[in-house]
């Protein structure tokens, strides 16, 4: 029967397409039918955290660090509770990674502090002797792009109904505020000031006072949010 197809390119291509579509239809589509629901307590990222997440992506931190705790005792002992599907409901894109040259970071906010991250990015070997991680001093100078972070939050809110400006747990308060552009940027700067207060780098503090948010501040906000 295959001889017939080999002389008719059109039907050959159709048959190829049927063969390759099979797995996708059965394996990929079902999970979209039942949308991945957020677990209780999972919140969308704030604008500053999103700006930090964009820095994390820009530097391809996910090339060396995973964000997925597997359900093994050795992993839960080391990193904390194993990952649940709903915890990733607002992760666009997902950042599970495929290789651990460094440790997992999905719950790094539970056991590392702003101060630790600051030292780590400036000189990784100062807190982890023997590390193979490069230093990221330029993150103390480069300015984070709050506009693009706002654009992303606005987009996921309008296109994917990510619950910004909503009361998620019923306590009468808005959980994650986005609001209009001006108030969103002002809130992000206020968040940044709170982070910078825990840092020791004077240039960073000065920049934040002037309303310029260095990448390191946003990145730390993001890392602290991973819990």
């Amino acid at each position: 029967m295959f001889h017939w197809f080999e002389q008719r390119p059109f039907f050959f291509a159709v048959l190829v397409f049927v063969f390759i579509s099979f797995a996708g239809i059965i394996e990929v589509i079902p999970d979209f039918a039942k949308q991945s629901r957020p677990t209780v307590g999972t919140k969308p990222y704030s604008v500053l955290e999103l700006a930090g997440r964009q820095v994390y992506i820009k530097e391809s931190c996910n090339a060396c660090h995973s964000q997925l705790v597997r359900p093994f005792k050795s992993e839960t002992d080391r990193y904390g509770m194993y990952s649940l599907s709903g915890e990733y409901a607002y992760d666009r894109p997902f950042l599970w990674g495929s290789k651990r040259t460094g440790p997992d970071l999905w719950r790094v906010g539970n056991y590392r502090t702003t101060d630790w991250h600051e030292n780590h990015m400036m000189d990784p070997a100062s807190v982890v002797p023997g590390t193979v991680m490069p230093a990221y001093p330029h993150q103390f100078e480069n300015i984070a792009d709050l506009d693009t972070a706002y654009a992303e939050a606005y987009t996921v809110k309008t296109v994917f109904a990510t619950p910004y400006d909503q009361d998620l747990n019923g306590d009468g308060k808005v959980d994650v505020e986005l609001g209009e552009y001006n108030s969103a940027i002002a809130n992000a700067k206020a968040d940044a000031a709170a982070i910078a207060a825990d840092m020791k780098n004077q240039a960073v503090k000065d920049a934040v006072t002037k309303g310029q948010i260095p990448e390191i501040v946003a990145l730390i906000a993001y890392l602290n949010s991973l819990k």
Partner: protein
Amino acid sequence: MQKSVHVEYDYSVAKAFAVVAILFGIIGMSLGVVLAFQLAFPELSNLAGEYGTFGRLRPIHTNGVTFGFTLSGVFAGWYYISQRVLKVSLKESPFLMAIAKLHFVLYFITIILAVVTLFMGITTSKEYAELEWPLDVLVVVWWVLWGISIFGLIGIRRERTLYISLWYFIATFLAIAMLYLFNNMEVPTALVSGYGSWIHSVSMYSGTNDAIVQWWYGHNAVAFVFTVPIIALNYYFLPKESGQNVYSYKLSILAFWGLLFVYLWAGGHHLIYSTVPDWMQTMGSVMSVVLILPSWGSAINMLLTMKGEWQQLQTNTLIKFMVLASTFYMLSTIEGPIQAIKSVNAIAHFTDWIPGHVHDGVLGWVVFMIMAALFHMVPRMYKREIYSKSLMDTQFWLQTTGIVLYFTSMWIAGITQGMMWRAYDEYGSLVYSFIDTVIVLKPYYTIRAVGGLLYLVGFFMFAYNIYKTIKCGRVLDKEPVNATPVAA
């Protein structure tokens, strides 16, 4: 459908792709060596400020080798093979000639832009799909152009039946089109909000769904860039070079359709012990093991093509390249399924065994096969004899040594790391902190870097040999033909 016409083939586009294959090969593999040394000697990571860190260079390395080198090699192979097995020349159709040239130009521009944007840190972070949406659009455009070229040439063919290699090219075209489109669905944020960078986008899928789509794509980018079109090259060049017919038609049918059906399921093995539904993980695991059958089917078919002619290994270096490539294909396609078994995956996942696996496949199978294809094509396209056969032989042994150093060190490193992560002492506490498991790997990283360096030196010898062949190789009046030429 006459068979005895004399066709004057036009190799201009094939030549262009051959040259950029070597160019991007040098870029991609050199960066690979830099990355390998950075892991062994981390101080090398900060030599070029933010533009030289591991995280920035790594996507350029993977994209450079996958979409720069490999795809160029595949396209060069396509524009060479297709005319010959279809018995038509690109010259006969000014339209298809224009499409082919535009395909090359847009492709080249895209890869250059990819290098620039990735250096700047513009990435979607999805592995092997890092390019942001404007570049994705460009990719789709030249992929469609390639499709027009494929079906256009097939449409004006003089040979009724499609040769095996063409099956594989058609499958490459269709599968990558489907996978690339679905995985790269993203929403440009500036378009929606009116704020921020115009080049930034956000994925259409979130969390676990994003992971499912990504690895359905990611693993099958391996399938349909690193496997299927390379088999196409092997099925054409090995019979041509050895003068032997493909061993079994039935086996090639079984292997082809089996591969297409099974491969697409295997992406799930990247997500074992993740948060995707359990049945999907099991399916990915089982189908990965089943995949041994069609993979070894084609590999055995390739190797048995040499049946009764094994002495050619001593007389023809090109045959050595192709036989070693087929052997590494077998090695890699038994290693992958082993890693996809759940209990093995628990140790292997996230460790250096994974890059080890990728590299014995890419260095041993993909790059060897493409180099062999170019070694076969260049004398025929430029009517020049290969400049130095002894250089070819030295390159072969140097690179083979490099690969062996690479995968053995990564096997040991990966399993060591996996076992250390899960080691408990008699009081039920973890024995090693994470950094202990990093420090212990440094010697293996050094061995890997040396292996990679040997391979890279071999690649430079290859580039030099090809350059000298084109520039000052002995002129051939007509293209070399083997003692017992096969049809097509």
